[in-house]
């Protein structure tokens, strides 16, 4: 058993090296003093300095953050309410709705993007609008909501079926039942869904590409436009920065969780001791 485990661990380590090799290359060459992405010619921080004066990159970064934050927040609200609604339905109604909910998750991005662009273009002809930030936001909300629902539903199923009635018997209005009893219970699911939705939005290229039109550009779209010419090391610099931010956030979250777990265990031990 242990022997098999070492083999498995070595294989896993090799896989992780494979996953991180291009990222290391990307980060190392963000410090390269020339524009080459294969020849190392000396250390510099110039790309990081130039990054902040590059209006194209900064505005596309702003668009990406704005659309991702807005879309994931709106999706979290609509999705949470929808999940509570689906949960309260009879199975014969819930099942088809959940199937439709899964379509954007399972469908290829390109089909989601193309189908939305068909809708936006033809609706735009009727109502006289063009593709832009609005259509981009609607598209992002549409593919974010299913992830919120998929992570909230399991939390709802963990609830006691009688919780709603118990809360109302104790005098809660329907709004208080949701706001004071149900939402706190399913909060981990909502936060999780929000984070997945945000990640999906930040990383999305394909759906944005088909729904944003030519007036707005997300960071992914800017990068794609650049790959046709040559990517400036400034892009390496900004992704290194984003990577560092996420890494630090993840470490903080994990350390805090680990501490809380330790504290909980201590508490339990103390309680047992006092008994």
């Amino acid at each position, binding site marked *: 058993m242990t022997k098999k485990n070492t083999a498995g661990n070595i294989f896993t380590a090799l896989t992780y090296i494979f996953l991180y090799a291009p990222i290391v290359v990307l980060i190392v060459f963000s410090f390269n003093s020339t524009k080459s992405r294969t020849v190392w010619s000396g250390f510099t921080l110039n790309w990081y300095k130039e990054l902040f004066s590059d209006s194209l990159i900064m505005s596309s970064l702003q668009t990406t953050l704005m659309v991702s934050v807005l879309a994931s927040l709106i999706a979290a609200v609509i999705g949470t309410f929808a999940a509570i609604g689906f949960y309260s339905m009879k199975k014969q109604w819930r099942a088809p709705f959940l199937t439709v909910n899964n379509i954007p998750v399972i469908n290829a991005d390109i089909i989601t993007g193309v189908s939305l662009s068909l809708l936006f273009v033809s609706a735009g002809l009727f109502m006289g609008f063009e593709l832009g930030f609005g259509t981009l936001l609607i598209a992002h909300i549409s593919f974010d909501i299913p992830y919120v629902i998929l992570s909230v539903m399991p939390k709802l199923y963990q609830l006691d079926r009688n919780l709603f009635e118990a809360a109302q018997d104790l005098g809660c209005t329907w709004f208080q039942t949701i706001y004071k009893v149900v939402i706190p219970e399913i909060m981990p699911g909502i936060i999780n869904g929000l984070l997945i939705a945000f990640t999906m939005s930040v990383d999305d290229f394909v759906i944005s*590409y088909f729904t944003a039109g030519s007036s707005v550009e997300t960071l992914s779209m800017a990068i794609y436009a650049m790959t046709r010419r040559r990517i400036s090391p400034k892009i390496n610099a900004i992704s290194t920065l984003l990577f560092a931010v996420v890494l630090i956030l993840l470490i903080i979250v994990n350390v805090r969780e680990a501490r809380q777990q330790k504290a909980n265990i201590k508490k339990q031990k103390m309680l047992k001791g006092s008994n």
Partner: protein
Amino acid sequence: MNRSSAPAGFKERVASVWLPVKSFLERYRRQSFAYPYVLWMALFVVIPIILIGVYAFTSAEGGFTLENFSGITNYIPVFGRSLWLALVATAICFIIGYPVALAISRMDAKAQRIMLMLIMLPMWINFLLRTYAWMSLLENTGLINRMLAAIGVFDWINAMHSGNPNYTPITHFQLINTNGAVVLGMVYNYLPFMILPIQSVIVKIDPFVIEAAQDLGASSRTVFRKVIFPLSLSGVISGITMVFVPSVSTFVISRLLGGSTNMLLGDLIEMQFMGAAYNPHLGSAISLIMMAIVVICMSVMNKFGEGEEQAVVM
């Protein structure tokens, strides 16, 4: 006593009628929370897909036609290539991903958390940039070829052929703009989607089930074959879908790593909507067929999983 019990009895009777009605109304009100999203789905999920169907069966003039589908016959090689490369990439992801998922799920809880975090971390680097980074590794003058040259691989190969007059010395391996590079890009980008669902299912297997099998005399190999693998099948199925679907429909990976000559289905669709060959009707027809392929593949896959819950997303 009589005086106090009469109103109480009355209250109870009212309650016995009113409470079920009330809880029914409450339930009904809670159901209505889903209505905004149901409307949203109708507008932005169902209608767009119907539009694809409408476009696929109409011509630019607006009449019904099947021409879009007969036009597709020219692109059969592209369909074949896409399916083949996606299948190869999915198979490789499975072969790499399953052992890794198994190894991770055998670690202790803390190590598991770190390993999972490390798998998700690269997803935070823009997917285009990760693919672009592979370009700098695979190019003819890229890092891999430079490294091979530095340790003298090409000199050695050229020296082996020195007797042959027709031989032209090589200075690099052709790595980029090949099918191999495209498959590599798919495996690299979608491997986490194979590892995560499989791992999440294996972790949930009751350790007592495995212990029971061992107590009944099963070797570790039999335990894996008869217990662990069958129980992890639902994770495998969602992993396979989550790798195959984006692989078969990508146009970014093929454009960056496959060069301009190696077209995939995704490129074909993209060209009909954004490219010079603007023809959304043909594009919709191709999209429709691609959706059909995905649905067929998935229903075949689900047959294997027989009734297992299938929504394992991260």
